[in-house]
């Protein structure tokens, strides 16, 4: 169990506070008289830290340059794509004519169909396959069934 500490007289307290000043003076003296090897080691540590700060700063800058450059290149490529590729302006699929949709009324689609002729031929071959015809029949059947249900309700 702790015993309650007795209050010290003011003179003793003042003496002790003067002791604090002496303590800090001793510490100041220790710092002033620090041996040369420690001083040099501290100097080296400081220079090392500053060098690493410089390196990290230049790395950050180069990263910013690369990010900026990449962004500019991407923007330029996107602009080029919009200007040079006509189909992308409407956002329509380029092989829309191959799906059996009439394109005569839409000149841009006709152009796209001509430009993408190779792809259209392969799409036509796909549409002519038996599997696609079966699927088409099924779709017709489901449409009819829906109409029937609507009429009964």
């Amino acid at each position: 169990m702790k015993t309650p500490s007795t209050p010290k007289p003011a003179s003793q307290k003042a003496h002790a506070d003067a002791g604090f000043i002496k303590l800090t003076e001793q510490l100041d003296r220790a710092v002033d008289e620090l041996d040369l090897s420690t001083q040099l080691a501290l100097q080296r540590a400081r220079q090392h830290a500053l060098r690493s700060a410089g390196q990290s700063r230049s790395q950050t800058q180069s990263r910013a340059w690369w990010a900026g450059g990449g962004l500019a290149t991407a923007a330029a490529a996107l602009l080029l794509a919009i200007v040079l590729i006509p189909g992308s302006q409407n956002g329509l699929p380029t092989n829309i004519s191959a799906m059996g949709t009439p394109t005569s009324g839409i000149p841009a689609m006709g152009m796209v169909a001509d430009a993408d002729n190779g792809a259209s031929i392969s799409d036509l071959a796909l549409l002519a396959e038996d599997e696609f015809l079966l699927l088409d029949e099924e779709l017709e059947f489901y449409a009819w069934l829906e109409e029937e249900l609507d009429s009964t309700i």
Partner: protein
Amino acid sequence: METMPQSHQLMLNQHQQSATDADESLNDFLAAVEKRAWQMAWLATHNRDDALDAVQDSMLAFVKKYADKPAAERRPLFYRILSNRLRDYGRRQTTRKRWVSAWFSWFDEDQQAQVDWEPPDVHGELPEQALNNQHMLEATEALLRSLPSRQREAFLLREWEGLDVARTATAMGVTPGSVKTHYFRAIQKLRTALEDFR
């Protein structure tokens, strides 16, 4: 070879100048705190190399994290990092000592202390005077080392480094109330010890 446009050159020069100014400012700050930081680390570790490592690590962490901070905020932040390093060091030492004492009960700390001891740097003082000064310094260090680490830290930051309560709290990573408690306990113990010296 293509030459750089004048405007770009000007921007580059301005940037380099600001980087140099920042480095100079950081250099001045670190030069101002490094010896005191070492003294605090020395009091906490009682090992020259460990104290140097703690200060160097603190400098590296400081320039990476807080290099852009205004001058008024730098000191408590630097001591905060140092304080964390020294606390980690204390924890590692405690664990290591526990293991060492468990496995090698014959481990002699006095022998270890003898290996670490270096003769004092007298700087041209008379041998008697140097001895007295050295004894005073050793007594001071022993007295401060006898305090618990948080109390010693609070005393050094408040009394020696001259930080106010709020900045000491930032440096120690505790509340201002906690700083007051640690500081009060430290000065109570030191007053008693200094009375005994009398």
